[in-house]
């Protein structure tokens, strides 16, 4: 069985939506420094996140089968797996400190601590268990009139300081769990990506025919090199503010 005109269009849409959703959620640009693979520079082993579904060609060819949510979820799942991988690495790279602070006080203290060490903080990983108290904390600690605030652009979220400086903010969830707050300068590690030789995209998508199905491989190929563990601060706050 081969792809008809509708099938060819839907394959293009699959690539577009999976990559778009992955790009909207990936934390890499704020959480690590990024380089593209260069065989002259980068020796050694690489790793990958692979996802390989077998999808019936008939579903691609049928104009009544809408698969947009499937394609988007694939990109979402890959971005989430990447975040979990980074969070696991961060947890094993630096011991967590328990501090008698609220989450916001802790984030601001460790932000300053990084700055004092000549670092440039770029992202916060925050455990979702603090979500409800976090907003009370923002309101009380920062004050209603000079607030810190949370702002989102597309699906990327930032903690915005009163002077407009901002930090990427990443909440944990059940698929990308983490237990401690982490504030870091993205120069803590280098992420080397092998891009698709076909179209140069970081999320590689290869498609082969397998009888009446398409054998599709989505994969991110990379190597993580840790550069500076002193660019990571990891903590558990002991206090929370409550307005309720």
């Amino acid at each position, binding site marked *: 069985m081969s792809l008809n005109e509708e099938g060819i269009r839907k394959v293009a849409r699959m690539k577009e939506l999976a990559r778009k959703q992955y790009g909207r959620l990936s934390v890499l640009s704020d959480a690590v420094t990024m380089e593209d693979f260069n065989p002259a520079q980068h020796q050694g082993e690489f790793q990958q996140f692979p996802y390989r579904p*077998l999808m019936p060609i008939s579903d691609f060819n049928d104009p009544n089968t*809408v698969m947009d*949510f499937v394609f988007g*979820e694939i990109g979402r799942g890959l971005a989430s797996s990447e975040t979990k991988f980074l969070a696991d690495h961060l947890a094993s790279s630096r011991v967590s400190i328990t501090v008698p602070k609220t989450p916001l006080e802790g984030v601001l203290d460790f932000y300053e601590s990084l700055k004092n060490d000549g670092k440039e903080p770029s992202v916060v990983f925050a455990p979702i268990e603090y979500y409800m108290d976090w907003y009370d904390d923002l309101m009380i600690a920062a004050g209603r009139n000079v607030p810190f605030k949370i702002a989102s652009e597309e699906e990327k979220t930032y903690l915005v300081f009163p002077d407009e400086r901002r930090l990427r903010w990443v909440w944990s969830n059940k698929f990308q769990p983490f237990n401690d707050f982490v504030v870091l300068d993205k120069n803590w590690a280098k992420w080397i990506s092998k891009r698709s030789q076909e179209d140069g995209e970081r999320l590689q998508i290869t498609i082969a025919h397998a009888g009446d199905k398409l054998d599709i491989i989505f994969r991110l190929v990379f190597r993580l090199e840790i550069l500076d563990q002193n660019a990571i601060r990891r903590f558990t706050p002991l206090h929370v503010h409550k307005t*309720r």
Partner: protein
Amino acid sequence: VFEALRRLFGRENAPSIFQLRVIIGYGRERALEIVKSLKKFIPGNRFRTWATWRGAGTVIASERFREEFDKRLVQSDVLLMVWTSDSPTSKEASRELAKAVELTKTIMPVIERGAVPPPQFDGLTNIEFEEGNAQAHFQEIVDNLEAIRVTREGTWGIRVSPE
């Protein structure tokens, strides 16, 4: 439909363990009846649904309602937002959408034919809804929720392996 989707991902024999949690929001009162019917229509064995009743005629929700909504949203996988022609002025719906974006939830907009979607729906895959054909649209919504559920079973927590 469910079995076809499972075959789609080559997981015919895999046990279904993942229950997708869906929170249903709405713009304004006209969508309430749609939300109530939709909640009844979504099968409980694969989906856990929670709908946001702000109360008839309520435009601005109470703090207690917002707190409850936020707690439920944290636990949810998908925000299904029903948007009718009287929705664009809903501050609460805008707030709920912003929260869903912050928490990187999948947003599934269900838009009544002729309604003007809010900017938060830009770039999202929409499902069009027409009251005269409600059952068919409800089925389309459930099929798409099932597509998300099955895809998540396969894609979330992909383990890293050597190249």
